[in-house]
């Protein structure tokens, strides 16, 4: 007996009860909880407990109608307890989700904090150095020395713009030490030493900038690729009937039910999905496409591989007709080798019968 049948039985019994004894507060309470908004989630998430509760409640209504108050009370209590158990499990699951999200967000926050603390230390050092220099009284003949020191500090600041603190750490540390030494010499009135140390510091800073620049450019490109990948992922979500996932080197779009059983011709009513995919491929031209056909585990291995290959080829042919260059695409039939769900269930097998279109981003 499914939930719908039980619910109908309960409603019919409830209608019959309407002419007999009024319902007990426990019965009213059960009905309120069952018919609430959360009730739907309970039925969906915990069908066994919800079904047990409904069966008990149907029995309670029947006993109530027969005037057996004791039996009706027993079944109402059972119904309320089964429903309460399902509700508590639902709450536990919700809390687990909250915990998971909070932990993941906390990890991100701590990572951001660690990076921020490194920046803070750099700024503190710079401010402390500048503070010492700024407080020194300009003495006779010290102007050139001060200019030299300022020039060295400017070079350090420029090196920081290409993240030299991260990519050329030791050179930057040497430049910092030389600037510190120059500041000490300035305090001591040794202008010659200030100019010498400042020149050396400037040289180290320029070297650091040169060393860091290629790495900074490369990483900047990676940042751009990441940004583009996220955008592709968002756009892929608009393809009707498809599901998208982001991988390290690209985005995978999975489509189901493109073909009839045992057939390798794309269903006419699925052309729209492939057309949208072709538009996406044209929009993201830098990406190459790997089209993989997958089957469930029914049928022979060879047949599954050739069928999945024929289906992947059919997708490539369709995209090609829609203007995607064949040179960008590779078709592979993987048969039943890469299941994503349990082949023992009907739903699992349907999940496994799929076409995956992998957008592979250009190599850096």
């Amino acid at each position: 007996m499914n939930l719908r049948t039980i619910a109908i039985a309960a409603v019919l019994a409830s209608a019959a009860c309407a002419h007999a004894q009024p319902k007990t507060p426990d019965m009213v309470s059960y009905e309120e909880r069952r018919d609430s908004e959360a009730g739907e989630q309970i039925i969906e998430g915990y069908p066994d407990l919800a079904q047990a509760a409904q069966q008990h409640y149907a029995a309670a209504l029947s006993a109530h109608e027969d005037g057996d108050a004791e039996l009706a009370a027993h079944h109402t209590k059972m119904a309320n307890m089964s429903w309460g158990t399902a509700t508590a499990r639902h709450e536990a699951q919700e809390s687990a989700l909250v915990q998971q999200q909070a932990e993941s967000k906390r990890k991100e926050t701590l990572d951001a904090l660690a990076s921020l603390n490194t920046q803070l230390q750099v700024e503190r050092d710079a401010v402390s150095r500048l503070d010492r220099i700024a407080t020194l009284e300009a003495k006779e003949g010290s102007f050139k020395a001060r200019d030299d020191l300022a020039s060295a500090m400017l070079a350090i600041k420029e090196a920081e713009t290409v993240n030299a603190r991260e990519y050329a750490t030791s050179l930057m540390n040497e430049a910092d030490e030389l600037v510190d030494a120059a500041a000490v010499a300035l305090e001591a009135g040794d202008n010659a030493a200030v100019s010498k140390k400042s020149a050396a510091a400037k040289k180290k800073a320029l070297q650091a900038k040169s060393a860091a620049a290629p790495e900074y450019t490369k990483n900047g490109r990676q940042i751009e690729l990441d940004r583009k990948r996220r955008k592709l992922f968002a756009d892929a979500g608009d393809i009707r009937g498809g599901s998208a996932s982001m991988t390290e080197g690209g985005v995978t779009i999975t489509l189901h039910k493109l073909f009839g059983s045992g057939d390798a011709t794309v269903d006419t009513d699925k052309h729209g999905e492939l057309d949208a995919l072709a538009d996406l491929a044209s929009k993201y031209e830098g990406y190459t496409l790997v089209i993989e056909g997958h089957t469930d585990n029914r049928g022979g291995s060879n047949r599954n591989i050739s069928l999945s290959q024929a289906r992947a080829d059919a997708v490539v042919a369709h995209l090609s007709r829609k203007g995607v260059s064949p040179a960008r695409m590779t078709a592979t039939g993987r048969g039943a080798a890469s299941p994503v769900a349990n082949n023992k269930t009907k739903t699992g097998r349907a999940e496994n019968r799929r076409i995956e279109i992998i957008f592979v981003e250009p190599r850096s």
Partner: protein
Amino acid sequence: MKTQLLTTVIAGGLLLGSLSVEAKPRNEQQRDELNQATVALKELTVRDAGNVVTTELGNAEAWLKEAESYAKKRRTRDEFRQALDRVNASLALMSARLDASDAQAVAQSASDELAEAEGNLRQSQMELQALTEKRASLEKAVTR
């Protein structure tokens, strides 16, 4: 007369005997079920340090006593089974509520830790902003 007395005594003895047999749980299975429920109830009582399921513990205890009492006498309806069903349903409910309460506490603690980390982050961001501004003004002063 003696025979009648003896018959009465034997009949009385048989009656007492049957009562003493009936006074015990109907069978081993019932005893096992009662024992299991008793143990589970004790475990949940210990687990409920935070008084999350106090009412349910009271209900389950009362139903367990009912089940024990029904186990000792034969009745038309199977009250023993119903009482024990209520006990077991109540045990499942309490266990789920305690699990939910534990999960809620863990989630709350994770949320508190997140709030603390976010607070620290905000503080560091403000400090960085202040330092950046100070550095810019000092640089201006030094290179002037």
